[in-house]
């Protein structure tokens, strides 16, 4: 069955990524081994944005077609998105403490990720508060679109804010994560691993939601 092969591939990719992150990649010049959290952070960040893009596009497609499967995609993606954005924020704080001496410094990208997390949070709690399936799909689709466009708006505001209020940086701060091939390669592999992981979890979440819908249908609710 195809499922077993893909699970094996995903598992292999992630094991490889973990190996590369923690063992293979060389220690960084100024931070030594503690910089490795960066790989986890960046790959989660990529996935969390990917997930919301999926929610955004699925929302648009639901409004245009009325087909409920787009709503299922949007919902499944959002649940994973909140998970990955939480990971991004936590690893991001660790990374920020390491690189800049502060757990949080309102860096525009950090801020945008926070807004992304809040967007997921708002979207998911909103979905939980509507029981009618079609209505929930339609209304949260609009929210999905609105929340998505708020993120670049917040990002640009935060960029501007940062130029006005530069955060005090410790001397060891401004580290340049080199473009050395091993680091780039590790980054690429960990991003790939995270994306594959997301795809697999997406499939699982989607199947679960489909199952829930089917059960509700046969029981006569919804």
């Amino acid at each position, binding site marked *: 069955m195809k499922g077993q092969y893909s699970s094996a591939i995903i598992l292999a990719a992630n094991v490889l990524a973990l190996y590369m992150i923690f063992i293979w990649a060389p220690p960084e010049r100024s931070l030594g081994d503690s910089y490795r959290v960066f790989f986890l952070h960046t790959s989660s960040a990529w996935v969390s944005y990917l997930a919301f893009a999926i929610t955004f596009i699925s929302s648009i497609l639901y409004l245009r077609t009325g087909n409920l499967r787009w709503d299922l995609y949007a919902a499944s993606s959002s649940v994973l998105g909140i998970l990955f954005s939480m990971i991004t924020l936590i690893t991001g704080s660790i990374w920020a403490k390491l690189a800049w001496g502060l757990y949080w410094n309102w860096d525009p990208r950090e801020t945008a990720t926070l807004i992304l997390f809040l967007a997921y949070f708002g979207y998911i709690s909103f979905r939980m508060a509507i029981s009618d*399936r079609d209505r929930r799909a339609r209304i949260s689709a609009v929210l999905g679109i609105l929340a998505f466009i708020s993120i670049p708006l917040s990002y640009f505001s935060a960029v501007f804010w940062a130029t006005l209020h530069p955060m005090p940086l410790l001397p060891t701060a401004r580290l340049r994560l080199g473009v050395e091939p091993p680091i780039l390669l590790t980054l690429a592999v960990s991003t790939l691993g995270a994306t594959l992981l997301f795809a697999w979890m997406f499939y699982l979440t989607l199947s679960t939601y489909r199952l829930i819908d089917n059960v*509700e*249908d*046969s029981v*006569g*609710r*919804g």
Partner: protein
Amino acid sequence: MKAPSYLVRLSNVSKKYGNRFGLRDVSFAVEDHEVFGLMGPNGAGKSTLIRILATLTKPTNGEATIAGYNVTKQLHPVKRLIGVCLHQSLLYDELTGMENLSFYIRLYGCRDKETAKQLIVNAASLFGIEDRLEDPVGTLSSGLRKRLDIIRATIHSPRLLLLDEPLAGLDLQGLEYFKKFLKDARKKSAIIFSTHSLDVAEEISHRICTLKEGQLAELRYAKR
């Protein structure tokens, strides 16, 4: 024999809620100036049907047209042609009858203040409430509120009146008013209304349609 031109046409209209059918394959047609009664037990789909024709809900399947306009695709022209009264009064309690009716009449296109006022006063006197027009709607009895609501629904001279349980809560005097109103309204509009009272339906309708569990169970002429 000339085929009658139908004002309202429903073809295989269905409405699903999850897996449950609120309406299932309902088809019928209503002519101009016809009084069409909808009967059936609670949950049979009468309100759903009226809401679909009122453009407030979309059917899951099938098509409904009013004067040739599709109720889901050509909302603007349909809305101009219909007047709707639902269970819930659509009037604002804190505003007076005059303020409420002016608001709605202007949304329906009559922007001239004097014309609007005249139309409202005329309609109110027909219903016997012209002396209560300056009272907040919340202070009126439910019977008077109902009459105001009907004025709201008919003031733009719609071709089709959709009334969801208009007899609910009416006393004998109210009922007489309503029958008189229907006799007048029939001259200008077709009327589709839902009710539980078979007697009244037989008395005032041309045809009666009975729904059962979302499906059309019976369609016949009234025995008058």
